[in-house]
């Protein structure tokens, strides 16, 4: 039965990983706007690619990533 002990710990670690992922997604603002991305995905790709400069803040990097998806 000792294998159950290992399984219990593996299970809680996995669940914990998901919890951490959830907290990260909340903190990065993914739940702030649940409507606009659904519209954005329908737009044609821009003919002239916007100049994406290395930006110093994390915030806008996330946004650019999301946009390219």
């Amino acid at each position, binding site marked *: 039965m000792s294998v159950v002990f290992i399984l219990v710990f593996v*299970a809680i670690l996995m669940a914990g990983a998901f919890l951490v992922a959830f907290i990260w997604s909340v903190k990065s*603002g993914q739940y702030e706007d649940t409507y606009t991305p659904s519209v*954005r995905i329908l*737009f044609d790709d821009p003919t002239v690619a*916007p100049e994406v400069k290395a930006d110093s803040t994390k915030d806008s990097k996330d946004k650019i990533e999301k946009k390219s998806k």
Partner: protein
Amino acid sequence: MPGVRISEETRPDDDTYAFLDLDHFKSKVLTFSEGGISKVSFFIPEIHCASCIWLLENLHSLNSGIIQSFVNFPKKEINITFKESEISLRQLVELLVSIHYIPEINQHSIEKPQTEHLDKKLFIKIGIAAFSFMNAMIYHFPQYLPGHQFLEADMKKLFGWLSVLLAIPVLTYSASDYFLTAYKSLKKKIISIDLPIALGLTTLFTQSLVEILSGKGIGYIDSLTGLVFFMLIGRWYQGKTYQALSFERDYKTYFPLAVTRITATGNDTIPLEELKAGDRILVRNQEIVPADSILKSGTANIDYSFVTGESMPVTKQAGDFVFAGGRQIGSAIELIIEKEVQQSYLTQLWNQAENPFTANNRLNTIVNRVSQYFTVVVVLIAIGSGIFWLFNKPEIALFSFTSVLIIACPCALALTVPFTFGSTMRQFGRKGFYLKNTAVIEHLYKVDTIVFDKTGTITNAQSSDIRFVGKKLTNEQLLIIKSLAFHSSHPLSKTICNSIDGDELIAINDFQEITSLGITGTINGVRMNMGSRYFVTGEKAEDENLKTEVWVYFENTILGHFQLENEYREGLQELIRKLKKTHELHLLTGDNDAEKENLVQFFGTDKNIHFNQSPTDKLNYIRNLQKGNRKVLMIGDGLNDAGALNESNVGIVIADNVFNFSPACDAILQSKQFVKLNQFIQFTHESMKIVKTGFLISFLYNLIGLSFAVQGALTPIVAAILMPISSVSVVLFASFSVSLSAKRFRF
């Protein structure tokens, strides 16, 4: 329409946004600025469709200085990253204005609110509670199955300790608010719903800890984490707000950030708060008069529609006194400030302290009233059963005492209100009635007196009833009148122009607009004049202010005049007839008694109709009603109602466009839904019934639970079944009954 064309009146005047070049404002407006790259975020009420998102997210193709723009549609917000070396903040704003997306830049929007942060925190709390709940259930589940006694002792111990570990973050972080508010209200000697919850949670945890430590069992951690999870879900459901609507606006939202001061050396732009009495300022077309002042030069044509709801502008001559809050239409005017912004008549009205009636209202909610009795009864039962067992079977005395506290934890009770009111608020929102929060529903239910404002509230703000008095006009004459009126931007001309059918406009020559008098032009060489009585006939009007008239002169004769009267909203008669049965109705208006007969017809009596009411009068009127122990609902639309709206138990603002400016209030009602006001109020009664039934259901569950608890027979499995079932069934009952009733109401 946004993004369509640049219309004359909204094109930025040369210096309207000059203040954005000042560092003082730039640093406040920008959210981030470093290394030549800046970020800014604007609220743009005009954002309304997918094309808006597309256009605004492609701003970089209009100006290469814009690196990226990003729209948050529910918030009607745009976040722009741009290079300041290529486009200045001022140019950026002017670019947005030129494509007809006018960002809201005012005192209120630059003081960044912290609400979104709170929202995130609640999400994380729910996430942690869900995580602990699910895992604790897994650990507890084997214990509820037959044959659990064969489980290894080590395994039991491990499961027990792991669930205690899981409970710690739930108790200290997720549920921290319940303990905090329970403590705070206790300090004020109030028993709120949070007290029995905090009590129940604490006993649950201690009891579980004791059982696990002593090796007797595994405790109630699954019930504990489940309770917290459900209650947080309720909080989230109730806390839904209309992100793009603002209920907290004060004069700061309305007034400009900066004004143009005229000095001996030239014009300069200064922040509004630096404005002193005696300063000379310049107010351009479409700008707002920021403080009470005297007109120095120019002809003022002041539109007070935001202030009073009256859509016709007021003409002022040099030397006249101008109240703050009006919007100048026409050429620029020069003003001398009489009073500073803070001391101006209308702004003073807002600086009132919070009134005791609404503050008191907040604590006296149905949940808190019920929970006061509830807590006392539960504690008495707990002590009673403890004492009973102390004399009969002392070893289970403590256990039955704690069991009562555990099972009585009013989770279902606490969930009834959030879900009933939350659903009601969503139903209202779908129908164009937006509430500030769910507490408004209960206040609306208690209302027994309704106070109406007249102009813009029970009359239509935009359209007016137009009649022509005089000779019968031929179709050709009508078309000529329309063609002449088409050339003027005066609201009266627009109203007349819109009221006449026909597409083919006739060419007008020599068009001239004579400020505050009228318009003139020639058609095929024949002169036509339209305007005030004085302008057309040369006689002074004897009954000024009573009715708005536009006189017409054509082919050397006076044809007659248009008479414009405010049009009452459709269905008003019916609405008042219905409301009269259940509520006491009052009407306050700043206008004179020209309309008295019509109003008496509507209201059936002139007892509660008051004319010539100043904003302060309105406020005092509400106060007096409240002193007579009446629960007052105030319905208004303009800034002159702001004091009264704030003072009343429930303040509702009528708005044609809910995203436009409206004074601080508890709810915003779309103007076309005004006639359904009665149904909205009736529906709150329905919601209250559902709440009471929900309470009954949760009491029944508590009764069942208590019957186990007082016998000292509460086992973890009973708690684990009873608590989630009671919560879920109350939630389902509340949500379904509300949507069923809404269907039945068919508003």
